[in-house]
């Protein structure tokens, strides 16, 4: 089919999105070439100076980026493993199936920032229930204020919040699988483990890849959790890229520099996500 009416369908959405975005994107590019900050607000032109600074004189940005990569890979890995296990468990006959399915979905329906506030009270080092439990063993871990544990706490909260999303995508995938391969495997006398390794997992590969990529995209934006739970601290020990850009831009008002950070970060993200997607396709399809 090819009628000129097609533009009437496409253009409203396209133009609205473009209209809202064209200024922010163009402006960010221009801003990144200026030294706009709270002392000298204005669009002057300083060439690539911000970018030079970023690449040669800003270890904090690269540390934050490393930390982000580490944290998002770990959380997405945990979310995928747990999400797949849960989806597999409530896929077939199980008592209270509906109850478990609904319950497992609920955390993703909650507002991350609000639940993080609650989690902050849960992990409160002297008044929270977690340390109330640990004090039975005579220890009180510093969940929020020690360099080692603050990252772990962020990861736990992220896993609680977003495993449901993985669970949803994977369960939807499992429910759409064709029945014939399983029947064939049963006839061949395959047990549950072999069925999973040779039938379920390979059939789920494309859906798994999609789900992992979507979650990696979302995980790379970790921000709300860090902001409420640790404010990037102690020191900069749980600071992620988004949070660092936020500090530079909206706390220290170095608009020009934070725009350069934003664009660099965005380009790194797009490139690395593309590479990860390609690697995952190779890995999953081969196994």
């Amino acid at each position, binding site marked *: *089919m090819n*009628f000129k*009416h*097609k533009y009437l*369908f*496409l253009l*409203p*959405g*396209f133009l*609205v*999105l473009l209209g*809202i*975005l064209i*200024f*922010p994107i163009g402006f*960010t590019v221009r801003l990144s070439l200026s030294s706009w900050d709270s002392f000298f607000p204005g669009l002057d032109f300083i060439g690539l100076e911000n970018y030079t600074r970023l690449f040669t004189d800003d270890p904090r940005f690269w540390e934050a980026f490393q930390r982000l990569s580490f944290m998002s890979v770990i959380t997405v890995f945990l979310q995928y493993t747990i999400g797949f296990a849960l989806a597999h*468990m*409530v896929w077939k006959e199980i008592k209270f199936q509906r109850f*478990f*399915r609904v*319950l*497992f*979905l609920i955390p993703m*329906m*909650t*507002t991350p*920032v*609000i*639940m993080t*506030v*609650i*989690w902050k*009270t*849960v992990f409160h080092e*002297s*008044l929270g*229930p977690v340390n*109330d439990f640990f004090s039975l063993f005579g220890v009180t871990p510093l969940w929020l204020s020690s360099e080692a544990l603050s990252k772990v706490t962020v990861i736990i909260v992220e896993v*609680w919040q977003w495993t449901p999303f993985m669970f*949803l995508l994977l369960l*939807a995938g499992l*429910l*759409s699988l064709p029945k014939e391969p399983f029947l064939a495997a049963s006839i061949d006398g395959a047990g*549950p483990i072999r069925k999973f390794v040779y039938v379920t997992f390979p059939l789920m590969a494309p*859906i798994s890849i*999609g789900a992992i990529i979507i979650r990696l*995209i979302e995980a790379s934006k970790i*921000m*709300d959790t860090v902001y409420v739970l640790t404010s990037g601290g102690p020191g900069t020990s749980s600071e992620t*890229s*988004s949070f660092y*850009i936020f500090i530079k*831009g*909206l706390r220290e008002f170095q608009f020009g520099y934070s*725009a350069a950070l*934003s*664009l660099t970060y*965005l380009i790194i*993200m797009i490139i690395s*996500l593309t590479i990860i997607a390609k690697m995952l396709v190779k890995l999953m399809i081969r196994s």
Partner: protein
Amino acid sequence: MGTFYTTLKYTAVTIWSMFVIAPFLWALSTSFKDFNSVTSGATYIPWVDFEPTLEGWRVLLRSPAQGGVNIVEPYLNSIFVTCLASFISILLGTLAAYALSRYTFKAGFIKNDDITFFFISQRIMPPVVLAIPFFIMLGKLGLLDTLLGLVMVYVVLLMPIAVWIMVDFFNKVPVEIDETALIDGCNPIQAFFKVVLPNSIPGMVVAGLFCMIFGWTDFFFAFILTFTEVQLLPVAIVSLNSSITPWWSLSAAALVSVAPLIVVAFIVERYLSKGNLSGALK
């Protein structure tokens, strides 16, 4: 299936269920505490561990002048912004997805896939990248600290979700249905509204649910782009956290904000079981 696997399965889902429920139970318990019960260490069961009070819940309905934090207005603001932005996103997103699924576009090297990527890639953009320019743009347009400004920003966040789900949905609906409508005398616009749309409701409901979830749970933009005039629920609740932390009202507010989305969880599960989601999410 072996008893071992069955035992493992029930143990695992029980443990995870407890992990899921734990923060809610803690919040529920905390919402009935007062300053003394909170600061005397972790307590759990009302009447046994502490004397319950309704103070945390009452604060939510009192005006700031009376030392309360009125969350009714932020609540209504959140509902308004989420619903309007979701509606616009679904409307425009469905139309665009239909065009991308059914028709071929070509402008130089730009083809359908590139346009689809343009829509969906907006989700890759970290909010912080857009925050400053949005801040400046809404300022220039006089839309800073207004509901309309937020709706505009949320449309950017939500339309990609609608396009993503609906392109997939339309790709699975046979094009012959549209063609039959054209042959039966509908022009393409009529064919869409009289035949395609009535048969796309399952996909649109799923897309709608996702838009609601991501709209309702956003914090960052609401936080950056509003100050005093309009406040959305998450911002209102987090602002409770600022000075002295009133855990009781914070917990009560959190529970109130979570409540409507529990209904959404039930609807999502219904669609999941009927198999409508599997088509829409892939």
